[in-house]
Every structure is written in structure tokens, then in C-alpha cells.
């Protein structure tokens, strides 16, 4: 019976509807002096490759003890490349153990497929030497990674600083005409989520604050608590975190995509400095937009606190606003609002550095974007902590 050829390299179409696959039959080992004969029957196919592999594994030790092993394929009923590859792997293992392996009874097309895969087979690479492991090694590797990251950050900041005088000298190489659009993207389009988030934070502060202050009979101080908390900490911090996630991710993904599509190289080949052309306008846009968003977040947060508190207090809107006005001194407002500047610088640096460090394809862009968001949120919180400590030391 002619074997139904499923095709070497699977290039030929298989019409499986013509007949059902014959049932799998396990190979059998027969001994005859120094020779072992492995009789293969049934299909050598992808669907039975796993079972064939396991059965051949079981026969390996016994067959390898003989000088010669014959793979008898006369009983094979249909094959494809997967079956042949499993058989070739068996042959390689036997040969490596000193046995001489030959084929018998192979139909011509099966033999051609065997020869093709055999001629292209490469010896498997030796397993890599085990590297150092353990806690000490991991700590060392992490330390080196951190040192490299710190160096890369310093190089980026140095490159940015170096580009500033160049940008001044060659004003036309900086696309300032893109600035309004960038500010709109960063500020205008981000306004909704900043307002909503700060409103919710204000509401939460109001609800929780009134309930807790009531326990001490101090609920009348809720306006002060909401105002100071929102202006000094929550407003700037929450706004910056939202912007880190939104704008930081946008910057990193945009620059990363430009990097992998060689647009950054094209810019450089036309004499543009990526720092001046890409980073500087984005820095300017965020420096303009984040303080405005922070101001907006402050106002909405305070309003949210009022909305939550008033129904639970015996207090008029006017009294609440007056208490807020007295608590929200220019100092409290300024100490919180000024943090928008270092937040904007850190978010832009981190996001643009991650974007411009992208190498590879879409996956690398995603990876760098994730890092940009995580690092910039961490940087925002770290900067806020430093400010809190300094303010505490200065008792302001």
C-alpha cells in the first residue's frame, strides 16, 4: 500500500477527510545477536509524536546496548515530518551511545524526508555552564544593574543640560511651534481625570475626616484639615501621580516608537539634537501644564471635602469657606504647589530617558513604557517625601 505522504516540511496540504488516521501502535524491540531491531508500526505523525517519543525513550537503554540498531519502517502507515523528527532524535541518541543505526523498509518519500532533516540537523548546543547563583550573586547583579541605571540617568541629565545652550544658539532646531499642542495634550486632555480624581480624594478626606474628628469633638476643624492636606500634599501628589501614568506613559511610548522606527536616527542625521527636538518641548509643556493642573486639583479637592463634610456638620457654606480661607494660607498653598516643578522635571526626564533607551520592537516599547510609569510614580513620591522632611525640619 502506498503511504499517504503528508509532506516533508509540511509544505503539502493534507486532506484529513480522505480517511481517518490509523490507530497508534507502540514500537517493538526485537533482539538478534549483536543487532536490535525496532519495529515501527502505524502512523509516524504529529498527533502521535508524544506517545512515540515516550515509547522510544523506554526502548533506548535496551537498544543502545547493541552494536547495530535497525529501525524497521516497513509497518509504518503514514507519516509526517514530526514523526520523522522524533525518530531522528532517537537515532541521534543511539548513535551518541555508540550504536550503528540503519533504516530498513522505508518507503521512498519517507526516506527522502529522513535524509532532508538529517542533512540539516545541527548537534544540540552543550548546556550553558551553570552561572553563579544564590542570594549574594543576585544582590551583586541587582547592584550592578542599579549602578548602570544610575549612570544612564546621569548621562541623560548631562546630555539634556548640554543641549540647553545648543537649543538657545539654534532656536529653529527646537520645534516650539509644537508647544501649544503638547500643552493641550498634557494639560487640556488630562484635566478631566485630574479633576475627577482630586474630587474623589477630597470627598474621601471629608467623609473620613468628619467621622474621626467627631470622636474628639473637633469636627469643626474639618475645613482646615481638608484645605491644608489638599494644598500641601494630596493635591500636588495625586495630580503628579495621574500625570505620571498618563503623560509619562505617553512620552515614553511616543519616543520609544520613534526610536524603534529609526525616526530618532533620522532626526540626528538631519542635524537635530533629540534632546532639543524631543525632550525640551515636552519638558516645557509639562512645566507649564502641571502647575495649572495642580492648582485645579487643589481647588477641586477642597470643594470635594466641603461637599462631603457639610451634610454631616452643623455648618453653613459661608462658615466653611471662611474657615478654609483662614487655613489655606499662601504658605501652605505655595509649599504644595511649588512641588509641581520638580515633579514635572522628574516625570519628563524619566519618561523621555526610558523612551529614548528603547531598543527592539513593540515589546520593548511596552517594557520601557511600564518602567517609565513605575519609576516616575516612585520618583514623585520620593520627591514629595524629601519635601515633607525638609518642611518639617524648617518647621513650615
Amino acid at each position, binding site marked *: 500500500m502506498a503511504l499517504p505522504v503528508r509532506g516533508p516540511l509540511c509544505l503539502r496540504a493534507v486532506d484529513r477527510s480522505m480517511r481517518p488516521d490509523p490507530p497508534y501502535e507502540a514500537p517493538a524491540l526485537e533482539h538478534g545477536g549483536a543487532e536490535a531491531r525496532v519495529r515501527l508500526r502505524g502512523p509516524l505523525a504529529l498527533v502521535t509524536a508524544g506517545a512515540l517519543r515516550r515509547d522510544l525513550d523506554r526502548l533506548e537503554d535496551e537498544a543502545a546496548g547493541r552494536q547495530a540498531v535497525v529501525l524497521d519502517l516497513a509497518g509504518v502507515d503514514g507519516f509526517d515530518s514530526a514523526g520523522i523528527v522524533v525518530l531522528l532524535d532517537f537515532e541521534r541518541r543511539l548513535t551518541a551511545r555508540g550504536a550503528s543505526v540503519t533504516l530498513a523498509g522505508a518507503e521512498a518519500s519517507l526516506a527522502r524526508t529522513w535524509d532532508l532533516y538529517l542533512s540539516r540537523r545541527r548537534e544540540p548546543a552543550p548546556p550553558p555552564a551553570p552561572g553563579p547563583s544564590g542570594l549574594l550573586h543576585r544582590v551583586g547583579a541587582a547592584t550592578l544593574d542599579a549602578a548602570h541605571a544610575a549612570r544612564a540617568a546621569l548621562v541623560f541629565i548631562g546630555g539634556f543640560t548640554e543641549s540647553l545652550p*545648543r537649543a538657545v544658539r*539654534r532656536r*529653529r*532646531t527646537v520645534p516650539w511651534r509644537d508647544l501649544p499642542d503638547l500643552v493641550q495634550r498634557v494639560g487640556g486632555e488630562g484635566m478631566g481625570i485630574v479633576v475627577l480624581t482630586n474630587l474623589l480624594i477630597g470627598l474621601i478626606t471629608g467623609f473620613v475626616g468628619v467621622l474621626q474628628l467627631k470622636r474628639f469633638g473637633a469636627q469643626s476643624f474639618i475645613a482646615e484639615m481638608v484645605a491644608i492636606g489638599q494644598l500641601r500634599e494630596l493635591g500636588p501628589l495625586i495630580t503628579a501621580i495621574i500625570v505620571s501614568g498618563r503623560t509619562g506613559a505617553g512620552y515614553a511610548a511616543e519616543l520609544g516608537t*520613534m526610536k524603534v*522606527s*529609526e*525616526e530618532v*536616527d*533620522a532626526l*540626528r*542625521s*538631519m*542635524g*537635530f*539634537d533629540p534632546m532639543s527636538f524631543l525632550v525640551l518641548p515636552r519638558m516645557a509643556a509639562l512645566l507649564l501644564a502641571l502647575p495649572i493642573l495642580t492648582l485645579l486639583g487643589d481647588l477641586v479637592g477642597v470643594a470635594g471635602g466641603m461637599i462631603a463634610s457639610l451634610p454631616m456638620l452643623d455648618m453653613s457654606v459661608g462658615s466653611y469657606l471662611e474657615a478654609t480661607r483662614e487655613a489655606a494660607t499662601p504658605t501652605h498653598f505655595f509649599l504644595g504647589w511649588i512641588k509641581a516643578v520638580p515633579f514635572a522635571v522628574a516625570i519628563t526626564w524619566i519618561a523621555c530617558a526610558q523612551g529614548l533607551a528603547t531598543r527592539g520592537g513593540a515589546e520593548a516599547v511596552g517594557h520601557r513604557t511600564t518602567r517609565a510609569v513605575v519609576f516616575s510614580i516612585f520618583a514623585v513620591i520620593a520627591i514629595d517625601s524629601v519635601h515633607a522632611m525638609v518642611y518639617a525640619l524648617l518647621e513650615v
Partner: protein
Amino acid sequence: MAAEPYVTVRDLSVGWGGVPLLRGLDFDVLRGECFAILGGSGSGKSTLMRFLIGLEEPLAGSVDIAGVGAPSLHEGRPSFGVMFQGGALFGSLTLRENLALPLRAWTDLDERTVDVLVAAKLDLVGLGGAEELLPEELSGGMRKRAAIARALVLETDLLFLDEPSAGLDPVTAVELDDLILGLVGELGITVVLVTHELPSLFRVADRCLLLDRERGGIATIGVPAELRDGARDAFVRHFFNRSSPREVTT
């Protein structure tokens, strides 16, 4: 063909992370010729181009363009144009804006003159009337044409083209070859072309350099047809005649 060297490369070593990929490269590109950098996948053709145009710092050796030293991309208006493999047009800008960008940065031209120059360059590459299209609206061949137009917009006389015909159908590839021939033959532009497409090579290149990854350097330099017909080196014969390595190593 003019005999004056335009790009001079001496003992150049290029690579990544301090590890050389190609070493001891010595060659000249002559003014007015189309010079091809040839090699198989992974042989370092595009890498070499990045070092020639100054995107990367060489590990050793030198590149000199027009006798004024190594290209520096920090020193203002570039003296050459580059077309990258995928075109590298700015996706958010129309073709007009893509071409106007270097003109606005490096010249004092008014917008009307910029528009006239942009339109002329797009006409030159056969994309007249496509000014308002975005790169995503163009086919692969059109994007490469547009990238060539952008590379030419500052009136350079030296062009670096990375795989201009890669990924294009044969008809479009021939059209792009004709464009390159026109740039060299009619405008006198010197072209350094990275390619692995032999039909394109034989059509447009005056001379070529063949990189061999195994040697880590240049396998040969010469006229493509002469290398195809008369090379003694087995690797060169294999590359040009596309025969099996086993046939030529005997």
C-alpha cells in the same frame, strides 16, 4: 567616473559594547559614484552605515567626508542626506511637514519658498501632489521615495541609502533603482547604498564592497559584474552566483 575620494574610511573598526563586529575597514567612495555596501543578513551593512554617518562612535580608525573630517551630527546642518530602511518619516507629520522640517531648521527661507522646494523634491521622486498625505497613507515604495526626497531637500550631494529596495515588489524596486540612477547620473549625487539585492546592485552600483561576517571585515571591493564573473574567492563567488557553499568550497 570621477577619481576624487569623497568618503575615505581608514582602518575602521565598528561594533557594539566595545566588541568589534567589523575590523580594519579601508575603502574610498569616489565623488559621483554609486557605491554599494553588500553582504548577507547580519553581516553588519546597516551597522557600518550608522558609523559612516556618525550616529555611532567607531571603536578605532577614521571616517572622513569631503576632506573635512568625521561627520558630527552635533555641528549643525548635515553635509549629507540619509534614507533609513523603513523610511523613518515622522508619522504625525504630512509629507510637506516632513520635508519642510530640515529647511525650516537650517535655512532662512520663507514659507512660500519652502513650499516650492518641497513640491519640487516630491515631483523629483514621483510623489508630486502628495504633500498633504501622512506616511501611513503611503505604500512602502512611496515612503522610501519620500524619505529620499527629504534626504535631498537640503541640496546635499551625498546620499546614504539603507536597503532602498528591500521589501518592495520587483516593479517598484526597479522604479526606485531608476530614481537612484537618475540622482547619480543626472544630478551628480554620490550615493552610498546598503543592499543585499543583487538585481538592484547590478543595475545601479558602479562599485561595491562585500562584507563577510566570518572574516569580520571586507571580503572584496570592485565592480559588481567583474566580481560576479571573475572572483576567485569562494565566498565572493558564492555570494554573487548564489550557488551552494559546498559547490564552491571544493
